């Protein structure tokens, strides 16, 4: 085997890119601990601040209903994830195992839903939600979120279920297990990695969603984090200190999640998009 070792030049080159990727984070982090007077003007370009302060962080939680936004996002994203994955796991199992006419067409239509611009459905969905009095409620967001998260989840889970050998079910049947028992005791435990990956992706998508959140939940009480962050900008001033602090607060959990589950997220995303 010819093992090519990377030279120091490679590392240097890579580090340049790493710098480009990290710079926005570092800059925002720095901005969030700078005193307001150093955000603009002479000291705006300083690498360091001699007076680090947590004022912006305090202000985000005290002067803005940021905690409320975080809570709203958590509730909506969690319920969406649990419901979507629960339904999708059943549907995907059925699609993976049952043979029926037009299966590939249905799968194609399913995947198309997740790729079409959601904006093409925003006005009817808004009307729908409004008719049922669900604007400014958690349910008003959970309904459209699950609608759009389901197709991709089903698609992902079908690929996972397909990898589970059919013999296992046959064996379970021989041993006298009912289909339900087979599903819950044999199949689902094997599909846990797939279910987990799907859950992460659905959660991130719901947590980050903006268009529906912006349109449907306009009341301060029901805004989610992305809408909250986008709307920090006041009419005349933009409170950059607070915005930076808020950005750091919402970014850190996602960064940790990515560091922990990077492999799963990547495999999930690519299997959803590359043909097998």
């Amino acid at each position, binding site marked *: 085997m010819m093992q090519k070792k990377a030279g120091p030049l490679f590392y240097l080159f890579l580090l340049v890119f790493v710098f480009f990727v990290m710079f926005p984070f570092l800059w925002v982090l720095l901005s969030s601990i700078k005193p307001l007077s150093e955000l603009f003007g002479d000291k705006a*370009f300083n690498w360091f601040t001699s007076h680090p302060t947590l004022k912006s962080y305090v202000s985000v939680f005290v002067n803005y209903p940021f905690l409320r936004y975080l809570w709203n996002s958590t509730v909506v994203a969690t319920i969406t994830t649990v419901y979507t994955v629960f339904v999708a796991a059943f549907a995907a199992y059925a699609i993976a195992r049952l043979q029926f006419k037009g299966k590939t067409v249905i799968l194609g239509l399913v995947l198309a839903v997740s790729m079409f611009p959601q*904006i*093409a*459905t925003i006005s009817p969905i808004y009307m729908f939600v409004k008719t049922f009095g669900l604007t400014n409620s958690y349910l008003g967001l959970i309904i459209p979120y699950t609608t759009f998260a389901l197709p991709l989840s089903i698609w992902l889970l079908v690929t996972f279920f397909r990898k589970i050998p059919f013999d296992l079910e046959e064996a379970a049947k021989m041993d006298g297990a009912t289909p339900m028992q087979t599903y819950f005791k044999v199949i689902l435990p094997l599909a846990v990695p797939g279910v987990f990956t799907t859950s992460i992706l659905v959660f991130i998508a719901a947590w980050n969603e903006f268009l529906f959140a912006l349109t449907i939940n306009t009341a301060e009480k029901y805004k989610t984090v*992305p809408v909250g962050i*986008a709307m920090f900008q006041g009419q005349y001033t933009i409170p*950059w200190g607070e915005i*930076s602090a808020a950005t750091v607060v919402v*970014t850190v959990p996602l960064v940790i999640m990515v560091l922990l589950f990077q492999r799963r997220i990547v495999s999930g995303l690519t299997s959803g998009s590359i043909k097998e």
Partner: protein
Amino acid sequence: MIFLFVYGFIGWTGYVSLSNWNSLVPDWSFAGVKNYLYLFHDFRFQADLRNTLVFTVLFIAAVIVLGQLLAILLDQKLRGESLFRNIFFFPMALSFVVTGVVWQWLFNPSTGVNLFLKPLGLDGKWYTDTNILFGFHWGKIEFGIPVAIIAVVVAAVWQMTGFAVAMYLAGLRAIPDEVREAARMDGATEFQLYWKIILPLLRPITVSVIIIMAHISLKIFDLIYAMTGPGANFVTDVPGVYMFETTFRGNYYANGAAIAMVMLLSVAIFIVPYLISSRKGGS
């Protein structure tokens, strides 16, 4: 059932786009293609189409080039590869809104990246710049590359490149080592190896990357809404933002629906052939 729901809603939008409903009160009377004609003669919509085209081309090109380059660099059996991969990947998990806000701050004319440019005597106006590069008049608009769009492209590339890297890396790993060794035996230089052998082998992945990035860029909304808005003279406006403002701020439901349908069709041009071909190739 869910899918009937979604396709039903799309049908509804399609119908509204052909109606006269341009006020708060629903008006279902048939208007033909009037709304579409209006759009294609509209200054703002023409600017939107220009911006979308420029944005999509620049964005996809940058993502492909950087994605391949970084994937090849990461594939050199280096130490700490997973750390690098993580770093490149994690902007991907952020929402476009956060990316937009962060880059709005970075590109702020009086701070951020201008840290590096000020000493060079450059004074970046970035997304507030209304100049259009290589501009010429075409229809009602000046066609060319709006400077402000470049700022948005940078932000989008920053966020999405990690995804392309991950896909290319998977592709590189799938190429057996024998291929490389055979090429080296035949006396190919490293550069030739990658340029003539590896990159062509990665072409199917490039197709996937193009499809994925195109459908993201054609329907982009959050990033621009959070970062720049329509911009002066609509230099950074895109159909998504126009649609939202027309429908929910102006109550021109029929016009908004027509914009949405144009977006839908443009995305469909990319993904329908892709889905059909992947169906044939797949199961």
